[in-house]
């Protein structure tokens, strides 16, 4: 996947993204990981270095795939909508979808596949319920363009934007167990876990969910 969220590069371009750091915390050392929409392989590198994982990636952008493989990562050119169906059940300890689900054509199928392929799924996404998004829509009457969602509606690759509450509902619909859910504010700080989902949905700019599939 391309960098779907179009998050502008941090000033400290080399320091890992906060959502990546959180994902790295969630992953057990030495596990098998599939990163769907792995981009230039930043997360896979981080997981390999800090957690010694056996990592694989799927990426839609050919140049990024080439860069990943040239750096020694095991990455295939493909995309979440088409290529996940080929993987067997429980082939990985973690199937990760980082800031990509909102750009897939069939997010529900993609999520179901992630939960099937991985013993755990980790999904991060930009939160359309963030107060800034809401206020832009409310006061300008136009599709919000924010730091987190910088493209105009006709250029954006995002086809299925959702809020934290929407995503939690989808998890319930597909029978996924939410083991952990963390939201970040615009400064990249984690919101206190004890805050209600309504508050997280209002103040969280991005969210990361650690999920377990429904019992077979």
């Amino acid at each position, binding site marked *: 996947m391309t960098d779907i969220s179009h998050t502008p590069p941090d000033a400290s371009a080399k320091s890992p993204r906060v959502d990546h750091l959180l994902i790295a915390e969630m992953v057990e050392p030495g596990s098998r990981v599939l990163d769907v929409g792995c981009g230039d392989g930043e997360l896979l590198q981080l997981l390999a270095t800090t957690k010694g994982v056996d990592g694989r990636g799927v990426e839609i952008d050919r140049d990024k795939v080439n860069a990943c493989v*040239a750096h020694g990562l095991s990455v295939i050119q493909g995309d979440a909508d088409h290529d996940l169906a080929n993987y067997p059940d429980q082939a990985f300890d973690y199937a990760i979808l980082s800031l990509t689900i909102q750009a897939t054509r069939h997010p529900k199928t993609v999520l179901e596949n992630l939960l099937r392929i991985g013993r755990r799924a980790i999904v991060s996404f930009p939160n359309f319920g963030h107060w800034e998004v809401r206020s832009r829509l409310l006061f300008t009457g136009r599709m919000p363009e924010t730091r987190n969602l910088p493209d105009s509606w006709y250029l954006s690759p995002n086809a299925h934007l959702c809020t934290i509450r929407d995503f939690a509902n989808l998890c319930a619909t597909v029978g996924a167990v939410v083991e952990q859910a963390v939201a970040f504010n615009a400064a990249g700080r984690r919101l206190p876990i004890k805050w209600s989902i309504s508050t997280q949905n209002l103040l969280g700019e991005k969210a990361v969910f650690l999920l377990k599939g429904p019992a077979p």
Partner: protein
Amino acid sequence: MSAATPDLSALAEPRWNEVHNPTSPVIRFGENEPLRLECQQDLAPFAIAYQTYGELNADKSNAILVCHALTGDQHVASDHPITHKPGWWTSLVGPGKAVDTNRFFVICANILGGCMGSTGPASLNPKTGKPYGLDFPVITIGDMVEAQARLIDKLGIDQLFCVIGGSMGGMQVLEWAARYKERVFSAAPIAAAAWHSSQNIAFHEVGRQAVMADPNWAAGNYYAAGTTPKNGLAVARMAAHITYLSEEALHQKFGRNLQDRDTKTFSFNADFQVESYLRYQGSTFVDRFDANSYLYITRAMDYFDLREKHGQVLANAFRGTKTRFCVVSFTSDWLYPTRESRAIVQALNAVAANVSFVEIDSDKGHDAFLLEEPTFFKTIRGFLNAAATKRGLAPVPEGRS
């Protein structure tokens, strides 16, 4: 002439010397070491000619087997003994190259059925003392791999660090990975397919019919007569050569340009540059290649379908594999298009194999894997470096990179 004392003077050309006494090393397997072929015949004795580059390390863990394509040979990175041209994959293989012979021990064997020293239809049939011709058994990609495995045994190597090859070489890579899961640490099938397509079989049939239509082919017995079906083989090569290129590549290279003339001649001379080029490709090919070998090898490719022995499900061929794969295709390759590489990748994903897959943007067609493609080189270098780290291979010695 009698069968006992054949007149082989006609076979004295360099081409025939390479068939019988190749300039490269050769391992000869005796009557007591037959090769059981897929057609259920035993081939014995047989010979496998090969080249090596670099040095095998102490624990024999740095060997890379390069598998060559239809008209390739063992001379990967050294001059060809007949044409004296540089090796066919010097772009990729050599000191400091992506397949770095300062770090790896590179082996390439002339395939079974070939004509550069490994046993093939031009080799002498021990029963008659004459070249086999059409008495040579029909061989398969699997048979080629079995013969290579016997060579690797003789070289005392248990596990190959990597098996790599393009086109038909890629078919051998897949066959190696399916047959010898424990012996292949990593595998790179390039511009290849897990089964030969109907279209590709069709092109091969055109080539074979061109050879067989040449009166000099003489039902495959041209050796004794001192002739070769040059015209037929040249036409086969010309037709095949078109399939190795792309329309874009042909257009850029030749367009409609005329060859050494300003106007059309209103004849069937090679007015166009592209005609002249193809004629040249055809005529140089026949000086180094045996027509019967061409028939047998194209047949082996046509018979290739890795699904057949695995319940028609390609993924079954790779079940349980620990091999690290790097599958590569090229955008303008219409002979082995990307979708065929993708089918390999999907099968590998279905068994959760460790696989990388890169489609290289190139306008050079199928031949791109032999040409200057920096992105392709980076891919292979990155893949091999990562695999070498996993395998615990020492880095390139200081001062040798």
